[in-house]
């Protein structure tokens, strides 16, 4: 028999750090879309079947499962369709809490994406708020949505919620 269990200080935990290195590729279609960010503009893609404009786009229409090759340059202006005040610290966070993340519907786009709202007190952010993108300085632009620093209010009147009910 073994006396392994009779020790005063049995091993109960095991540390097994794991590191894996990857070399990603964005693929052709997504790279086209990402290049827009590197150039400081939003480039959406239109589905040839349903005609909806996707931004950001991974290169396909999720409904029709076809490549979205037609590019559409979209403006910097957008509407906040809904939002959340984030007050939770988590790993990898780069912004001071609390902050506002919002569903951003670019003018001319048919889907929203999450964006950061600044330049307005948290308790004044509202559904329907009109905002515009503020990009990082030109020398910091890259092929990533992180090229958009944040969105700030334009001062235009809010959009009626009923006009964007289809878009959260």
């Amino acid at each position, binding site marked *: 028999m073994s006396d392994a269990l009779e020790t005063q200080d049995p091993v109960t935990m095991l540390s*097994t750090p794991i590191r*894996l290195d990857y070399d*990603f590729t964005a693929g052709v279609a997504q790279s086209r879309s990402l290049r827009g960010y590197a150039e400081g503009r939003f480039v959406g893609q239109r589905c040839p079947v349903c005609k909806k404009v996707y931004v950001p786009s*991974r*290169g*396909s*229409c*999720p409904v029709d*499962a076809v490549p979205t090759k037609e590019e559409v340059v979209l403006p910097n202006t957008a509407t906040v369709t809904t939002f959340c005040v984030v007050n939770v610290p988590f790993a990898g966070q780069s912004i001071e809490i609390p902050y506002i993340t919002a569903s951003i519907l670019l003018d001319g786009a048919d889907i929203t994406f999450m964006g950061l709202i600044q330049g307005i007190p948290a308790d004044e952010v509202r559904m329907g708020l009109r905002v515009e993108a503020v990009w990082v300085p030109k020398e910091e632009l890259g092929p990533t949505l992180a090229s958009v620093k944040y969105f700030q209010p334009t001062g235009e009147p809010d959009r009626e919620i009923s006009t964007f009910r289809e878009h959260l």
Partner: protein
Amino acid sequence: MSTAPQPKQGTRPVAIVSFAQAPTQRRIEQANEVELLMPVISEVYAQANMTKDDVDFVCSGSTDYLIGGPFSFVTALDAVGVWPPKRESHVEMDAAWALYESWVQLQEGDLDVALVYGFGKSSLGDLQRILALQLDPYTMAPLWPDQVSLAALQAQAMIDRGLATEEDFAGVASRSRRDAMNNPNAQVANDLDVATLLKEEYIASPLRRHCVPPLSDGAAAMILVAGDRAFDVVDRPAWITGIDHRIEAHAFGVRDLATSPSTTKAAHMAGVGEGDVDVAEIHAPFAHQEILLASALGLSSATTLNPSGGPLAANPLMAGGLIRFGEAANRIMDGTASRAVAHATSGPILQQNLVAVLEAAS
């Protein structure tokens, strides 16, 4: 008028009616997962003269660790267009098991058509390191054993048992690569004899470079149809007349590595030995495993093994097993075989094995 043969398992005959795969490459940089899958899925629809609206059930096989992020199967769904909402499922296994889950679903009788697909890119990460994470996390994975060395343990056990020689391994590789010259989707195709191959150096003895599968990026898709409707799609559907899968113990030191009891059991359940086998597509990533598996499957020398070139010619992880089913089905559909065996494996050194018999209607 042909009638669908009665399957050994289940009650409803199910057939493979179309199959497509992306030409396998070492690194497909031009396409993300969705771009890799979209043309393949379009092609299986085109072959079957169907659209996504004809599909009643969708099932895929993939693993998050190849891409290094959670939920890779979720974004891949953009290549399928599951709208209006569909019955859909995913196995974190080779897509051959997605085929199995689809076959089970089709037994229910209230749905007739399933789309199965799998995808995997080995080029994004260090595959040897990634696959070490399949091992027992307490006593094996911390040593980071690579899968070539683990496979070599099995090959050595075969040699010690007198079941095969290094010349035999080279023979499998030589034949596979020569056959691959007729396969436009293969990645490694050449005409090198055994003597030439035996001059290569060992990666982990007794395995030389030619005994080891290439690193591959790839994807494959397939359509299954239940019942006589399959005859409306294709003249010679590849009927799944028997299918079964089994798993073995995980610890290598518990198993007899020179045998594959899970394959033998699955083959028995699938009825492999109940008739002549014209063609077998065997998911043997390492050369010695073809010899081991052909024996475990109970195949005779009359069976043509891996006419596609097999995994030694192209080995996209998570799609590789499904491709064996597709290649075997193609031999039925094109009339060169009337009874074929398809085999898929999952896990370290053949831990889990799936076997099916595919037949043409008589």
